């Protein structure tokens, strides 16, 4: 009966559409990104204040902001990288959001997803930002290089350009190794190896991929959770890649609607939260199998064995899709989420240390 409880601690109604929320590292503040009704971008910083949140800073940008990440920022700078509806990648110093510290027209169309690595002490190597866009391209950016990406992964000229919905970094456990996972609207899942500059693995899971995340960015690839349309998500064991079968995975049904995103608990990589299109959030726990690899009869090569997931909690917060969810790194059990009911919620998840 020691089920973790998910409690909506604070609810704050906003006057704009919320697309993303991120805790500012090493603070009780978080930044909310979205779009005002007139199409301009909203960038607001809130601070936790004894059972309430208070607005610290607010600025309006010319373009609606879709997504943001602190992943590539140094801790003392805490610069937020954002992708907007017009395909522009901006990096903001939140102390002064008048002009971006780095700005580039990254894509021709909306940036659906952004992720950073090697900042905040998470991941080795050069801090980089990855963006995925409706124009079908996935680009990796280094803020030291102005005006052009360090890596561009796009379909060849003339080939169909699928809408890239989700990107994430992983495998950044040393200076050389780094991977980018990208999910597309047609269910394509691609894993790019930035060390060898090649496509390491790809598969199709039939349903459009809305969100994906490695359980940890800064370790040798362990697990990858992929959430899709049609109320499904997949968990891949990324330790063992078979030359033909690839990575082994399991499929799980949840939310009875689109699974919008997945976020692993920073304090425990085997616990993760998925957010649903029906306004519910689910907490899951992954259990490893007895042996993570096995050899099939008459075969030399090992194939990965996937474990199992158990649902710890399922809580309905609203009736609208939960667009974003972010765990607070500094305080276990604290999280923020945004939903399309224009409400920001601060959540408390108890008993996480007991599961």
């Amino acid at each position, binding site marked *: 009966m020691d089920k973790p409880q998910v409690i909506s601690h604070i609810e704050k109604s906003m006057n704009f559409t919320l697309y993303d929320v991120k805790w500012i590292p090493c603070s*009780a503040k978080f930044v909310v990104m979205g779009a005002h009704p007139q199409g301009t971008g909203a960038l607001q910083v809130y*601070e936790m204040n004894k059972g309430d949140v208070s607005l610290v800073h607010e600025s309006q940008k010319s373009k609606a902001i879709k997504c943001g990440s602190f992943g590539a920022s140094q801790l003392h700078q805490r610069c937020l990288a954002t992708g907007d509806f017009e395909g522009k990648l901006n990096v903001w110093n939140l102390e002064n959001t008048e002009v971006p510290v780095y700005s580039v027209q990254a894509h021709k169309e909306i940036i659906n997803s952004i992720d950073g690595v090697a900042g905040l002490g998470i991941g080795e190597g*050069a801090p980089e930002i990855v963006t995925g866009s409706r124009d079908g391209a996935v680009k990796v950016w280094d803020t030291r290089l102005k005006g052009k990406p360090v890596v561009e992964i796009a379909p060849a000229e003339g080939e169909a350009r699928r809408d890239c919905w989700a990107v994430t970094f992983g495998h950044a456990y040393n200076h050389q190794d780094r991977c980018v996972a990208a999910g597309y609207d047609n269910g394509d899942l691609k894993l790019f190896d930035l060390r060898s500059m090649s496509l390491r693995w790809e598969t199709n899971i039939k349903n459009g991929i809305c969100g994906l995340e490695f359980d940890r960015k800064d370790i040798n690839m362990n697990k990858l959770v992929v959430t899709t349309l049609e109320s499904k998500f997949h968990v891949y064991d990324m330790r063992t890649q078979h030359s033909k079968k690839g990575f082994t995975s399991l499929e799980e049904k949840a939310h009875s609607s689109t699974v919008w995103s997945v976020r692993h608990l920073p304090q425990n990589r085997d616990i993760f939260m998925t957010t649903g299109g029906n306004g519910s959030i689910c907490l899951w726990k992954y259990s490893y199998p007895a042996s993570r690899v096995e050899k099939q009869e008459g075969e030399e090569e090992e194939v990965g064995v996937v474990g199992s997931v158990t649902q710890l909690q399922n809580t309905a917060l609203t009736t609208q899709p939960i667009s974003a969810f972010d765990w607070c790194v*500094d305080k276990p059990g604290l999280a923020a989420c945004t939903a399309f009911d224009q409400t920001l919620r601060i959540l*408390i998840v108890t008993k996480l240390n007991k599961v």
Partner: protein
Amino acid sequence: MSKFNMLECQQQVKENSLELNDYLRELEKWETDVKKKDDKLRTSQPLANVQPKLPPVRNEAKRQKRKKPQSSENKKEKPQPIKSYNYSAWDKFDVEKACQDIDQGADQQSSEEDDDSADNERQEMEWRVQQAVAEKDLGNDLFKKAKYEEAIEHYTKGIGYDQFSAILPANRAMALLKLGRYAAAEADASTSIGLDPTYVKAYARRGTARLARKCLAEARLDFEQVLTLEPDNRQAKADILKIENFLEKSKPTPDLEESQPEKADEGRLSKKLPAKLDVVPGLVMPIDKSVHLRSKKPLTRISIDEYDEDEHISLVETEKPPETSQTKQATAGDRLAVSSGSDNRVTGMSSPSGSVDGVHRQSSKVDVVIGDESRQDRARTTVTGSINKDEGTADVAEDDGPPLPANSVQLQLDWRRLKGNSSKLYKYFKRIQPADYPRLFSQFLEADVLSQIIAVLRDFYVCEKEDVFSVLAGLVHVARFSTIAMFMGSTETKALNALFERVKQSGLHSKEDVAAVSLKYNLS
């Protein structure tokens, strides 16, 4: 059972709310803690040395990777080391060769390092060129705004970055022209031409500068060069016309000594070389052909006729050089040349006309040295003319030194060449008008030069019964003369005394004048 369940449920709820309360209390504490931490982080400046050294930007790393495979190939070439127990192989082992290989390997390695440094150098060079272009653009903008001084500053900076660009000095020349600093403009344009002999604008600008400096003949050459490169250049045509008009006006009575066949020859030459209207007969000229027009055929050896010194002198005596006062005619130098060949391929060895310093315009100064024939210094070497393709006629002209110098630099060069040959020096010196001494000798007159002049006066002027006094009086007006006169030795003083004695005896000049001049020579 259900009662038990309900109790449990109650307990659960109580537990949950307790847990939540605990969490909220903790949360509040965390809030205050983390806010302090946050403030500290925000206010404190990051220490420079704390910041980790970041790996290079990704695509730069990639570029380095591309280079690596080359070096690994080298490694693959290395033969397998011979195993210590493989005696037959050791028997065949050539120690000398192995040592050599090791040496070569070291060379290779160093060359690899050279590659690296060359790469860096190239990058540095690229950067410099970029900077130079940026400076040029800035300069051009300022030039358009008529801020010539500032434009010149930027061009100068640009030249500092990239001294091989022909455009920068040409642009600076233009700005200098606008400011009326013609001499500097001419020098810059010459530099530009030296870097790119096909750069039309540089010729045009040098022509303009020379025109402004009243060096008409040179200006004309430049404009003609513009026309050869760009036949439709209206400005150049107009300028040439202007020069011709000017020359027409200032032309003295035609020189009687200029013989008819020579003129015909000149006409023929000019047909061949439109750029050189004042080509002198019997003179070997470097042929001004821009690089792209030059013959691609290989050079061929050409026959050289040798003349004895005596023969030459007899020639000189029989055909006295025309004594002229005009600079232009003096450039029609008097060099001996025999044109008998029929090979136009020799043009390949001609030097471009726009030599870098702009002073060596006088092509007659170019000594053509061909092969080992040149070692006969006593014999006159003459070069078969490349000009006449179909004719084998031999024109004999004579040579008694370079033409009249246009400026002091040229004078210095000529003087140095003629120093050993006093008879030629005499002829050369004689042609210089005493009135020109201050201009030509100003930076050049030293004690040794003065003693050479005095020697010439003593040895030749006296014999030829030339006017010694005008020379002596002319030299007095050269800057710093009095200082130089103080360094005269006893031989010079003696010679001077003799000279002045002759002047006095001749009675051509008033005694006061002679006394005043001799006083300047520190003679009592």
